[in-house]
């Protein structure tokens, strides 16, 4: 091998502390080095030309540049080398600036160290092999999981750019939590009024394939090339025939047995139902857990009345597979329930606030339904127990949030705002009513947010009390709320007609399972994790899988929408070219050596290792060996360190290369 060494002065940056001439001279004597020079600015055009020219003149087939950190100019020099006809991976960088000249002062010592680093790069490059970047084709279709506002926004952005989208929603309708909200902070516009047109747009969009009442079962493949299996759950209604007339729901004898999920258990619904009148698609499903036909074989009322003959009791779950290039996770959140939780849960519940025992102690979403014009009370404030107008409402913030003992240590970020909104909406309708908010801090960071909270206090007369409530109990139809105003240092007792708990936003209970299915990391709370909290906030660490909305962490609608559009943009960046380029640093198995123990498979965090069967000509199985899926392998090298027989190697960082470096340094 003929190696050229190029030492950069970086103006004075390296040259001041490292005797570059001495380094270059010493390098000239290393075995394999045929040419060695130093120059003022290697990365400049003349500097690069120097390398290209030397490659030609000395027929170099290996290059070592002693310069700044490889994170800075490795790409530059590799490209220069490639331009001159040498494989770019036969170029190594020795970091003489960040790791030598900038951190040491003694010229002799620094120069000695620089020589060491060059020697070590030379030894490494000798063992490099020509590599080509890996190219994989891209399927330009996006899967969006979750049809809340985040999923809707992401789907529309991608579809409007002309790419196909598959939107999977597990409930019978899209819309998510936003469809349940009454009015939204900080503008108090009607939630459904702004959401419904978007839902319809999704439904009618020629590029969007909408799969409601469906769930993702399996994800195989890798960035640009996923194969996704989706379970379309049986609705027992043929969606190609149903017109959404609603006759079946009208006639269904089951009216009281099922609590409405959409109305947060405040009302009931029939066994065949659409979650809410504006549902998209407006096609009912049968809840088999309450339907008389499914329990006893009798009834069929719905089937009889359906003029379209759309009811189909024999329908079964359907499995679909889709070819997908990018995945956007948008599965949203759940509210911490104030009820006593099951034994196995992390959540302990709030016995001191009466668990789910008191009818008029409700959570934020129940309040939204009561406040909503389309809700069970048509937007009139009535308390659930007796329908009376509450004259005194207490709101309690941070229930389940910032509570290590009964909930979660994080702040749910939105409850300060929605509580201010709730108190305001109440005061706007019940002028003589009193609203009290118990809070610990008010977190109103956002455009017009702080102003919004101040308006609740200054203009609408909501009384804010700083302190956490200790207990609520019922006495003579009133709820006795025991608190302490920690600012005044006085105990406060309020006899309220109704109490609203701003309970925490928590991850979907099945989020961690879904994350495992899809292959992305999640945190201890079940929220999906981004690669970099500052600079790559909408990307998961698995290539081609992006995050949007409240499935990542508690967030409000503006944040969710912004994140969704960002995720959509990231997916479209992927679709900008037909082929994907990847660094060739991946693991490779020596099938002759591999013993098939699959320790490597166990440690690979990317599921990149598969089992390959080796067969003889007759088709008899000889043995099973490991096989690295180059699309999935991220090149961490864990498998390499784990393999007992050293049969799997990380290209570019093989044992041989590393041993050579170790030897060269001593």
């Amino acid at each position, binding site marked *: 091998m003929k190696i050229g060494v190029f030492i950069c002065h970086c103006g004075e940056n390296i040259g001041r502390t490292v005797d570059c001439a001495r380094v270059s001279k010493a390098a000239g004597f290393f075995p394999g080095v045929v040419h060695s020079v130093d120059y003022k600015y290697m990365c400049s055009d003349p500097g690069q030309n120097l390398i290209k020219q030397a490659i030609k003149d000395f027929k170099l087939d290996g290059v070592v540049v002693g310069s700044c950190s490889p994170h800075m100019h490795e790409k530059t020099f590799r490209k220069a080398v490639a331009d001159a006809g040498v494989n770019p991976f036969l170029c190594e960088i020795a970091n003489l600036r960040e790791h030598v000249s900038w*951190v040491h002062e003694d010229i002799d010592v620094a120069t000695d160290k620089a020589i060491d680093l060059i020697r070590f790069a030379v030894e490494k490059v000798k063992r490099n092999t020509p590599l080509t970047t890996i190219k994989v084709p891209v399927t330009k279709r996006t899967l969006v999981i979750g049809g809340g506002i985040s999923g809707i926004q992401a789907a529309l952005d991608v579809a409007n750019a002309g790419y196909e989208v598959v939107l999977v929603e597990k409930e019978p309708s899209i819309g998510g939590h936003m469809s349940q909200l009454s009015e939204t902070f900080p503008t108090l516009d009607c939630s459904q009024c702004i959401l419904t047109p978007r839902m319809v747009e999704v439904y009618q969009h020629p590029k969007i394939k909408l799969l409601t009442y469906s769930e993702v079962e399996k994800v195989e493949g890798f960035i640009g090339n996923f194969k996704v299996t989706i379970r379309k759950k049986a609705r027992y209604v043929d969606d190609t025939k149903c017109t959404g007339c609603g006759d079946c729901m009208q006639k269904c004898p089951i009216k009281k047995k099922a609590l409405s999920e959409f109305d947060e258990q405040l009302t009931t619904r029939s066994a065949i139902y659409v979650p809410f009148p504006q549902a998209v698609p407006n096609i009912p499903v049968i809840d088999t857990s309450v339907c008389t036909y499914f329990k006893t074989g009798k009834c069929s009322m719905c089937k009889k009345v359906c003029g379209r003959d759309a009811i189909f009791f024999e329908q079964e779950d359907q499995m679909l597979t889709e070819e997908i290039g990018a995945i956007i996770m948008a599965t949203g959140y759940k509210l911490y329930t104030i009820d006593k939780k099951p034994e196995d849960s992390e959540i302990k519940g709030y016995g001191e606030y009466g668990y789910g025992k008191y009818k008029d102690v409700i959570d934020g979403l129940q309040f939204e339904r009561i406040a909503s014009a389309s809700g069970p009370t048509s937007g009139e404030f009535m308390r659930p127990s007796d329908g009376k107008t509450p004259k005194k409402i207490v709101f309690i913030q941070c229930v389940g949030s910032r509570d290590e003992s009964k909930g979660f240590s994080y702040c749910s970020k939105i409850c300060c705002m929605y509580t201010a909104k709730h108190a305001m909406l109440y005061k706007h309708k019940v002028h003589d009513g009193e609203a009290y908010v118990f809070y610990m801090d008010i977190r109103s960071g956002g455009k017009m947010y702080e102003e919004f909270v101040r308006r609740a206090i200054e203009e609408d007369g909501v009384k804010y009390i700083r302190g956490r409530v200790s207990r609520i109990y019922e006495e003579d139809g009133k709820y006795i709320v025991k608190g302490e105003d920690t600012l005044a240092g006085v105990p406060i007792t309020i006899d309220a007609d109704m109490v609203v708990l701003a309970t925490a936003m928590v991850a979907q209970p099945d989020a961690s399972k879904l994350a495992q299915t899809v292959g992305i*990391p999640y945190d201890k709370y079940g929220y999906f994790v981004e690669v970099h909290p500052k600079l790559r906030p909408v990307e998961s660490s698995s290539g081609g899988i992006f995050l949007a909305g409240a499935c990542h962490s508690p967030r409000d609608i503006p944040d969710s929408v912004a994140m969704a559009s960002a995720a959509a943009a990231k997916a479209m960046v992927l679709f900008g070219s037909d082929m994907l380029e990847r660094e060739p640093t991946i693991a490779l198995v020596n099938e002759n050596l591999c013993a098939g123990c699959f320790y490597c498979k166990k440690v690979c965090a990317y599921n990149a290792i598969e089992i390959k069967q080796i067969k003889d000509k007759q088709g008899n199985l000889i043995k099973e060996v490991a096989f690295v899926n180059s699309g999935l392998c991220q090149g*961490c*090298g*864990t498998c390499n*360190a784990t393999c007992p027989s050293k049969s799997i190697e990380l290209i570019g*960082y093989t044992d041989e290369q590393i041993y050579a470096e170790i030897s060269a340094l001593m």
Partner: protein
Amino acid sequence: MENIKTQDPKIIAFVCNWCTYTGADLAGTSRLKYQPNIRMIKLPCTGRIDPVFIIKAFEKGADGVLVSGCHPGDCHYNAGNFHARRRWMMFHKLLDYMGIDENRLHFSWVSASEGKKFVDVVNAFTNKVKTQGPFEKYAKINKEFVINE
């Protein structure tokens, strides 16, 4: 003896590309100074580090070995450093058996933003290895081995 102890030790560091290597870069861009004995070998991830590398380094004459990567939970590769840590637990026990003093090997976490920490770790470890003196056990074996070869 005193003389030998303060002699410049040789230290090899195995660091991951994403965290510690970049942290060392940051020390550079911040112009922080540290002792020059360390020579770094860059790997994609601490998960790539085979305990044999460390033995090899001692065998080749290193007086100390530093291993440093991302903080637990911050691994660029999801869980690579987790596997690395598990391997170390086992390895620590082996060290003693191999006659290598615990003080010659140091594990630490230095993130990409911890230039100052990188400097502190390197200085502290260099000083520690200095007090240990040169590592001669393997050098002798090496010599004999070479002769026999």
